[in-house]
């Protein structure tokens, strides 16, 4: 017996654990109650604590009482309900997917609901609340099904979050397209998308309460089975638990809960992620919370506390009328983004990075053919982009224009159209190059400037400058974008540096930072230019609208330098992308080389943002496709990726300008619509 393992450390007695859990629960209830009480005393009407007290004891004057009853209490109740529903949904989703980063946001449930409601709004039918809740539920469920189906259950944390985030981006792009196309029908939908818990009376809460209760009861009923899933599918099956049915039921119930929350208040970001994460440390101390049956209500309480806390904080910080304009969801999104980053940085990177593309040796002929075909396609596309638009031109017009003897209209059209074509071509090439560099340096097939938050940081920098200095020039916008990009890059790469860049942590931190910058841009626009949602959408969706040649110059300059550097050092890129050891054996200064390439890619994405807004997925799609076509050698990948990027963005811009003319869509929206399926495909392929 002496050789056996030491006796297991004494566990705290179950009795004290139970008592502790009870004490913690009581404390949580008290905290939420306190927040709710504070929330009730805040608002635009002059009804403070004293009046609230009077109203609650029935001694207030009727007007004050009605404010408390019809405005404050419903708002607090909505906050409670929404927070609780999201927290509970988060626990359920995390339990069935065995994944600490699953939540209504990361499973694209909110984005699916948003798109479904947007589609309903466009039809112009005014729906009763319950019906729109049903639509939101259907949309959310469909999105969750796609994400869970693609990412596989219980497997990769990273894959789930990435599939969810990518789908959310694609769906949101479609919805934002709808917002731009149907501004009247979808009025207020943009604000709604930020999430706000204000209510017109109790009606909404009363209608959604049964839905939420249904979700809660359902979850409690299957709690035991969900617990069993934690043991692994086979073990659970061994215990006689129907794994598939349990999982589907839990996801449906969680979607029901988040649909109720979304219908009531719009998507309140990240509560479903944060609340379970806050409960988890409790579960470590008090074993009672480790079981789903207790974790669900506990996360509900924490979620309610988060939403009410965000609301209280917001109203305490800014004056009441401004607070009305700032959506609660922006505050929780900011908090949640920080949370996601911290969690990602601490996460043990168990999931393997997606396997590198199979080493394909392609013949020189294939490479040359590809290059030639792409070059011809690019030329043709450029010609098409110059000729096509709301008014169609012919080549002779262009010839006249080049010689400076074109007629008035043709000159007008070409003077305004060519800068846009250039901006699209160059931005596409720059993003493709930036993506190629980042993927080589980090050896991460999912890394790209938009996913890493670098583009978002650039947009934030540019928006800050544009809102403070209305007549900022092209170079200063590019400079501001670079400052923003550089800052986010330092944060993202700095946090991900531990353990090397190749880890998936990099992408997760990036995703967190990207959503943080999006929330900050929304906040900035709401505070400085509340009636200009188009402005925010233009920056966030990527558009070449209104670009002139000088605007494109910084991008052209940086691209020229970057192409030269990459061409000279393509062998180093080959080595860096191979593995950690080979370059070192060859005496290469890895850190410095990496830093140089990263700086270059940050410069590229920043100038691309300044010229055309945040255009996602190009940096991902172009290098992948290039490697698939011509193999992994950078001497071949680089030119092909550059051409592909230019072709992709130019096509997106051309479609955006012509399909629904005279109205138009940003190129970024189009690339998201094209890029999302590709991103999901890459994820799928990595699974095998």
């Amino acid at each position, binding site marked *: 017996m002496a050789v056996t393992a030491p006796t297991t450390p004494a566990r705290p007695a179950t009795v004290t654990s139970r008592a502790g859990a009870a004490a913690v629960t009581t404390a949580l209830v008290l905290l939420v109650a306190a927040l709710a009480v504070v929330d009730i005393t805040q*608002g635009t*009407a002059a009804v403070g604590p004293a009046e609230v007290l009077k109203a609650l004891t029935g001694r207030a004057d009727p007007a004050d009482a009605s404010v408390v009853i019809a405005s404050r209490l419903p708002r607090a109740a909505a906050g409670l309900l929404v927070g609780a529903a999201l927290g509970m949904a988060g626990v359920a989703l995390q339990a069935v997917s065995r994944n600490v980063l699953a939540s209504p946001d990361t499973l694209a449930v909110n984005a699916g609901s948003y798109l479904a409601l947007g589609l309903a709004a466009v039809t112009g039918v005014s729906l009763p609340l319950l019906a729109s809740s049903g639509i939101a539920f259907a949309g959310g469920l469909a999105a969750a099904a796609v994400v869970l189906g693609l990412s596989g259950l219980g497997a990769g944390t990273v894959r789930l979050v990435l599939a969810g985030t990518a789908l959310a981006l694609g769906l949101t792009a479609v919805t934002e397209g709808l917002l731009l196309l149907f*501004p009247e029908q979808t009025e207020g939908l943009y604000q709604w998308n930020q999430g706000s818990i204000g209510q*017109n009376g109790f009606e909404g809460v009363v209608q959604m309460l049964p839905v939420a209760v249904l979700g809660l009861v359902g979850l409690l009923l299957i709690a035991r089975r969900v617990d069993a899933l934690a043991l692994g599918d086979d073990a659970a099956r061994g215990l006689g638990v129907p794994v598939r049915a349990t999982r589907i039921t839990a996801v449906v119930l969680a979607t029901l809960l988040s649909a109720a929350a979304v219908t009531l208040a719009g998507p309140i970001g990240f509560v479903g992620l944060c609340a379970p994460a806050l409960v988890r440390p409790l579960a470590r101390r008090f074993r009672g919370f480790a079981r789903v049956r207790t974790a669900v209500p506990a996360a509900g309480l924490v979620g309610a506390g988060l939403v009410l806390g965000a609301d209280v904080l917001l109203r305490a910080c800014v004056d009441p009328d401004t607070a009305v304009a700032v959506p609660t969801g922006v505050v929780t999104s900011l908090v949640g983004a920080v949370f996601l980053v911290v969690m990602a940085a601490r996460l043990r990177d168990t999931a393997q990075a997606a396997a590198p593309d199979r080493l394909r040796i392609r013949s020189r002929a294939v490479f040359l053919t590809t290059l030639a075909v792409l070059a011809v396609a690019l030329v043709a596309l450029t010609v098409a982009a110059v000729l096509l638009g709301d008014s169609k031109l012919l080549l002779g*017009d262009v010839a006249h224009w080049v010689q400076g003897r074109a007629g008035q209209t043709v000159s007008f059209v070409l003077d305004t159209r060519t800068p846009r074509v250039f901006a699209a071509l160059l931005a596409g090439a720059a993003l493709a190059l930036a993506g190629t560099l980042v993927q080589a340096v980090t050896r991460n097939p999912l890394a790209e400037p938009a996913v890493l938050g670098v583009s978002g940081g650039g947009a934030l920098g540019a928006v800050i400058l544009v809102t403070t200095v209305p007549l900022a020039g092209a170079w200063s916008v590019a400079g501001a974008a670079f400052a923003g990009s550089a800052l986010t890059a330092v944060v993202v790469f700095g946090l991900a540096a531990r353990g090397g860049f190749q880890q998936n942590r990099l992408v997760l931190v990036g995703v967190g930072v990207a959503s943080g910058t999006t929330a900050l841009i929304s906040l900035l626009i709401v505070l400085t230019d509340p009636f200009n949602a188009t402005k925010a959408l233009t920056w966030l969706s990527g558009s070449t609208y209104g*670009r002139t040649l000088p605007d494109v110059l910084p991008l052209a300059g940086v691209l020229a330098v970057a192409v030269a550097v990459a061409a000279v050092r393509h062998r180093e890129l080959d080595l860096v992308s191979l593995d950690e050891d080979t370059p070192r054996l060859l005496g290469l200064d890895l850190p410095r080389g990496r830093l140089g390439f990263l700086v270059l890619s940050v410069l590229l994405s920043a100038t691309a943002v300044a010229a055309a807004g945040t255009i996602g997925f190009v940096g991902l799609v172009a290098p992948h496709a290039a490697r698939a076509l011509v193999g992994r050698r950078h001497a071949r990948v680089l030119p092909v990726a550059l051409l592909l990027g230019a072709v992709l963005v130019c096509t997106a811009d051309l479609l955006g300008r012509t399909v629904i003319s005279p109205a138009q869509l940003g190129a970024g929206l189009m690339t998201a619509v094209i890029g999302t399926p590709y991103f999901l495909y890459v994820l799928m392929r990595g699974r095998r």
Partner: protein
Amino acid sequence: MRRLLLTAPLAAAALLLTACGTTEPAADDAKASTEAITLTDATGAKVELDGPATKVVGTEWNVVESLVSLGVDPVGVADVKGYKTWDTAVPLKNDPKDIGTRGEPSMDTIASLKPDLIVTTSDLQPGAVKQLREVAPVLQVTSADAADPIGRMLENVDLIARATGTTERAATLKKDFEAKLAEGRKALADAGLDGAEIAFADGYVTSNQVSVRPYTAGSLIGAVNERLGLKNAWKMKGDEAYGLASTDVEGLTGLGKVHFVYIGNDDDPSSDPFGKELAKNSVWTSLPFVKSGDVHRLSDGVWMFGGTGSMEAYADSLVAALTK
């Protein structure tokens, strides 16, 4: 991918073959200029015209309304359908080309109209204005100014009138506008409403939330109210251009006993929360002006940020509602 790569050059060749020729003959001689007009617009830019502009494009509804009032039928208007919904006080008399959204009007469509003047506002992004200046002379007016809303609106009318050679008509418009305000003021005073407190707002509903947008003293409507001898009841500060603030239903409790006036639109179901969604809200129903039935929805189609025509229609509608 392979197939795509093969078809691309074919498509390209076809495109190149079909795209030869021109859509417009080469420019020959410039047309002789007559009675040239030179003005300085709101941004300080010089606008030079060969003569009074007749083919005019408007990128924002307020300038379109001014153009129509001045007897100049614009050839291009942004979001024609929206204009027809929200500004029936000054209906379009012709059938202008839709140039796209107000935020991002299409350069191509504008250029294809060959306008001799583009009238736009400070709401359009600078880059777009820069491009438009290459298309045709651009007259950029300050969209609104909370420091002097009426003065700003009339100045804009003047500026547009000078560019289109309709200064006489502008003088008539201004005279009619002043007369309408004086007439309204008298009617209200006769009804004992001189100095009465008024709160104008619009509101919209999303999901179960009601947003209210107060029109403070810095808004055009607010300024017209004051000229009609009424007092603005809103105490919050609006934004610097349009004088608009934001609040929610409980924010209305600070108003006291006022005349509450709003404009909705039957074609936009979410634009009438005061008449529909708030009916059962006890905060709303306990408001003094709601109890006394002093809530007035004015006629549809009066554009709250429009020109003299909209404001006259507003004054008429308001006087009719308050003196009923």
